């Protein structure tokens, strides 16, 4: 890090920010006490990113506490997913991982009880019309996001980890059955192999490829932590088969090997290689991944990379049953996530991102 010159940093800060890993770099630099050796122009950017990450950590911690409290009377397992789980487990990459919401997994037959309890405790499904609601409930693996009316934080309540449109059918009962309790807490996390498989499925099935680097770094950290347990690799492959997640597992291991240099035992790589798409499709897939992983954030958006990312986001071609309904098409395609899409070219009142809105921040104090 200290060898980089200013021009390198000029590119790195933009690329890292576009890939949502700037805060992780900032935390690493801070923890290794490298900050003072870095150029003066760079330090403020890392300092700003570190402060934001520290705030995210506190918010997630408190939010999990509030969720546990809101669901305390329900006799149901509540499993933290993704960022909140990594933080609870102390995964290396959790430090500085920005999390916009807390994701939890609950048994499908208890999801209405969970929703009711959250609604009673101050969360609300505001801002979504009935079509959005219907879309979520019918075609996604989670409830419409619930926002806490005072803290403005979001929770996504899942009943499984892949949308019902996906051709892979994961049995969420297996995930719940193997989940492990967190010491001193009411919430639980997925078993190590399942945690990795969920991250792989999340990226390689309905992926947000803009965050791909962050997800790959998460998976790399998981493997580094979990593979100290000798039977981990065997369990991983067995679980991938049982959960019907062979394809994303193989894709994740291959991509980690190609790009991150994650050490993966030869036998594991060989066995999972058999799960990959066959040659013409397989090399096309690799090419798409190559383009989708190109760093962005320099100058203007790269059209090839954007196209590769949008193809990969639709890669698991949805099941015909899903494609035959109008609702699927009206909602599935252009869901312009974070873009401020002023409908008729009009400016928004306050074109600043959500975390910066003065009133939101003030409310976050509650």
């Amino acid at each position, binding site marked *: 890090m200290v060898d980089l010159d*200013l021009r390198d940093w000029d590119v790195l800060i933009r690329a890292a920010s576009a890939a949502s890993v700037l805060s992780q770099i900032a935390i690493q630099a801070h923890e290794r006490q490298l900050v003072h050796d870095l150029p003066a122009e760079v330090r403020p950017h890392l300092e700003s990113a570190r402060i934001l990450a520290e705030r995210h950590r506190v918010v997630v911690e408190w939010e999990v506490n509030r969720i546990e409290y809101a669901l305390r009377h329900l006799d149901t397992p509540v499993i933290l997913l993704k960022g909140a789980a990594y933080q609870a487990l102390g995964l290396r990459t959790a430090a500085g991982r920005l999390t916009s919401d807390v994701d939890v997994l609950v048994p499908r037959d208890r999801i209405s009880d969970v929703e009711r309890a959250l609604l009673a405790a101050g969360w609300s499904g505001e801002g979504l019309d009935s079509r959005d609601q219907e879309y979520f409930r019918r075609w996604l693996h989670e409830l419409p996001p619930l926002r806490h009316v005072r803290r403005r934080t979001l929770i996504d309540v899942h009943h499984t980890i892949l949308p019902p449109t996906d051709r892979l059918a994961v049995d969420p009962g297996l995930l719940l059955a193997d989940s492990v309790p967190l010491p001193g807490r009411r919430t639980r996390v997925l078993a190590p192999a399942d945690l990795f498989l969920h991250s792989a499925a999340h990226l390689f099935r309905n992926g947000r490829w803009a965050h791909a680097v962050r997800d790959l770094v998460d998976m790399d950290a998981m493997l580094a932590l979990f593979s100290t347990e000798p039977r981990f690799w065997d369990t991983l492959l067995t679980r991938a088969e049982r959960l019907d997640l062979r394809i994303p597992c193989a894709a994740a291991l291959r991509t980690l090997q190609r790009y991150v240099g994650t050490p993966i035992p030869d036998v594991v790589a060989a066995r999972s290689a058999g799960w990959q798409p066959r040659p013409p499709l397989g090399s096309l897939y690799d090419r798409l991944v190559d383009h989708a992983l190109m760093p962005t954030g320099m100058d203007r958006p790269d059209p090839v990379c954007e196209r590769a990312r949008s193809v990969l986001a639709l890669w698991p071609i949805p099941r015909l049953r899903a494609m035959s309904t109008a609702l699927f098409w009206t909602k599935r395609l252009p869901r312009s996530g974070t873009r401020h899409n002023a409908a008729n070219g009009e400016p928004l009142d306050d074109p600043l991102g959500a975390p910066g809105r003065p009133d939101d921040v003030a409310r976050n104090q509650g």
Partner: protein
Amino acid sequence: MTLQQLSREDVRRRLVAERLCLRTGPFVVSIRTPIAQLHAALETLYGDFPVVDDPPFADFHVDIEHGRGWHRWIQPRASFAAGGQVLLAPFRLELATAFFEWGLNGCIAQGTHHYLLLHGAVVERNGRALTLLGRSGSGKSTLCAALTIAGWRLLSDEFTLIVPGSTEVMSLARPISLKNESIDLVSALAPDASFGPRAVTMRKGLITHLRPPGESVARMDEPAHLSRVVFVQYDATAGVALRPMSPPEAMSQIARQAFNYGIRGRQGFDHLTWLVDQCACGTLTYGNVHDAVSLLERDDISDAA
């Protein structure tokens, strides 16, 4: 070297083929845009700002592009990207200047948590800074423009950037955004002032930007210390009145006007509780901008308290 010292062709060439890098206070902004309105507007509004030649590092890289797609044949549009990520899109082409300003505001609001960042204008006289806070439409920009015209130094119309643990305020000296009636009002106060292009937006009505005074821009590296915090409320039917505010009340009000008070956590709390004791805080109601300026010029809230 300032922007106005470059030839028009040079400015255009940099904006289109390379990047034009301007410095506003602590930030170097690298700009690329093929949009002609913005070329002219940058020359008008940022003429006094220092140009940085091919800097190895820029804080913000912004690209304002023509919109693609069939829409352009009916109504030309544009987009604002920062660091290759689209921040604002699409907007009507004639709003390019306003969106440049808003987009850059967005970059600053999201990326500067190493300062305590308040949503409000700051001006300075005799080394003492006065920040004007208030909601959109409260008349703070109008008052900021009037104070600037009366000889106060402009630090910023949009952001009060405070160095943590201190009263030190950074200057950006960027253009002042004006809306609707305040545009004519300010033109009448300063007949020779320069303005950026005017455009009509659905939500805010007519908007334009006032070129900051050359002296304010030339002195943008000079620090100022915050000594007064005033919550502004324009009321056409009211006379001018300045009421002092207790530190705890000021504290809770300022927290609501801060972009990152919550993000800064404990540090933000400690800083703000200390800051309200260092400053005189109050609310200013005004119906006539001349009266407000003369009141602020002669009155120190601490005296009134």
